[in-house]
């Protein structure tokens, strides 16, 4: 068992046969219902014109970003990023505000819309199977994939493998590894023969969105303090003006009403 520094997935869309065994495996491993599975498969159907037909399928689950937007957005800090890759969600802290669902550019977190106050409505998302990877096994979806469309390993090695595979078959693949730099890099790497946009993956800049928002957030406390200072100054100025004009009699009246 080799010690993995940075867990990652590699998904090869050309190898996926749309069997959905990964969904079943995930559902069994993590004991969740099939209609709420943490992994889901989207098919493009048959595209192109005869005789150049092709199919595209895409397996989605949490991208385990290097700079997760959900973690940045959560007001109570229910998300955390493990140093070895996975982004983990802690239901003990969650207040159910669903802000992470808005923040995630991939639309990954799912919410229990059908649970009342007694059962408790929580967010659910891929956990990277910590119960398996911590003992050196592959995550359930990878272990079950019959065509090795999903692979698991060290992020650096998988990146190298992806680039090698693209270079070996340039006519088959698009010359890009999705997730290498998208949103600051993700732990779920994708190579494909159809445009990533068609697979439902958003086009994202290399700078994660949360870096922009966090810069703005840093300014709130200075802004609030300076605005308070401005209002205090205005208040003091008006008071001084009133005093000058009326000899201080008006100001006392206003003060007495507080």
């Amino acid at each position, binding site marked *: 068992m080799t010690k993995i520094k940075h867990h990652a997935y590699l998904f090869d869309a050309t190898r996926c046969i749309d069997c959905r065994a990964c969904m079943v495996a995930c559902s069994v491993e993590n004991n969740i219902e099939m209609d709420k599975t943490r992994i889901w498969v989207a098919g493009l159907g048959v595209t192109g014109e005869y005789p150049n037909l092709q199919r595209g399928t895409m397996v989605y689950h949490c991208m385990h970003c290097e700079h997760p937007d959900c973690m940045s957005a959560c007001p109570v800090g229910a998300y955390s990023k493990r140093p070895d890759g996975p982004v983990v969600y802690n239901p003990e802290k969650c207040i159910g505000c669903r802000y992470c669902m808005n923040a995630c550019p991939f639309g990954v977190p799912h919410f229990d819309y059908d*649970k009342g106050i007694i059962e408790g409505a929580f967010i659910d998302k891929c956990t990277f199977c910590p119960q398996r990877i911590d003992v050196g096994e592959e995550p359930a979806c990878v272990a079950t994939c019959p065509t090795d469309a999903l692979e698991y390993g060290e992020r650096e090695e998988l990146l190298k493998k992806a680039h090698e595979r693209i270079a070996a078959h340039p006519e088959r693949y698009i010359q890009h590894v999705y997730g290498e730099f998208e949103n600051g890099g993700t732990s779920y790497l994708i190579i494909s023969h159809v445009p990533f946009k068609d697979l439902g993956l958003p086009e994202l800049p290399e700078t994660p969105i949360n870096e922009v928002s966090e810069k703005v957030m840093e300014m709130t406390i200075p802004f609030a303090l300076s605005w308070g200072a401005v209002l205090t100054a205005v208040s003091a100025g008006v008071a001084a003006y009133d005093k000058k004009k009326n000899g201080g009699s008006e100001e006392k009246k206003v003060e007495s009403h507080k």
Partner: protein
Amino acid sequence: MKLNLTLPKFLRIGTLPLVLILLMAIAFVVAFMRYAFGIGAISDLSYSYPWGFWISFDLFTGVVISSGGFLMAGTVYILRIKEFQPLLRPSVLTAFLGYIMVVVALLVDLGQPLRIWYMIIYQNHTSVLFEIGICVMSYLTVLAI
């Protein structure tokens, strides 16, 4: 003998309060359904649209109602225009009710309404929503005073 059909004074209510009471009754039923069967039972929120109409309506209406109270307080206490003094108390009360409306809407909207105070103990300073939560809490405190 002519029957005296007039109600005693305390039972006489106008049409408008009756309508409001009816609306309240419906709202209580809906709120009960939400707490018993989940948010999905009373709304059409989905994974793609996790925040719906009631966030935009309830919260923003409440906040907008309250802004008037803050402006009035600013006019009286900071700019010291004493002509507005009589309007101060009703407007601050309206603002307080507006923020109460925000919190009540949040209690319905949050998946874990009992944990609404968690924002005080688990703080995540990079979150925009955290700042909003702190604002709502501090404004409510200010208005209650």
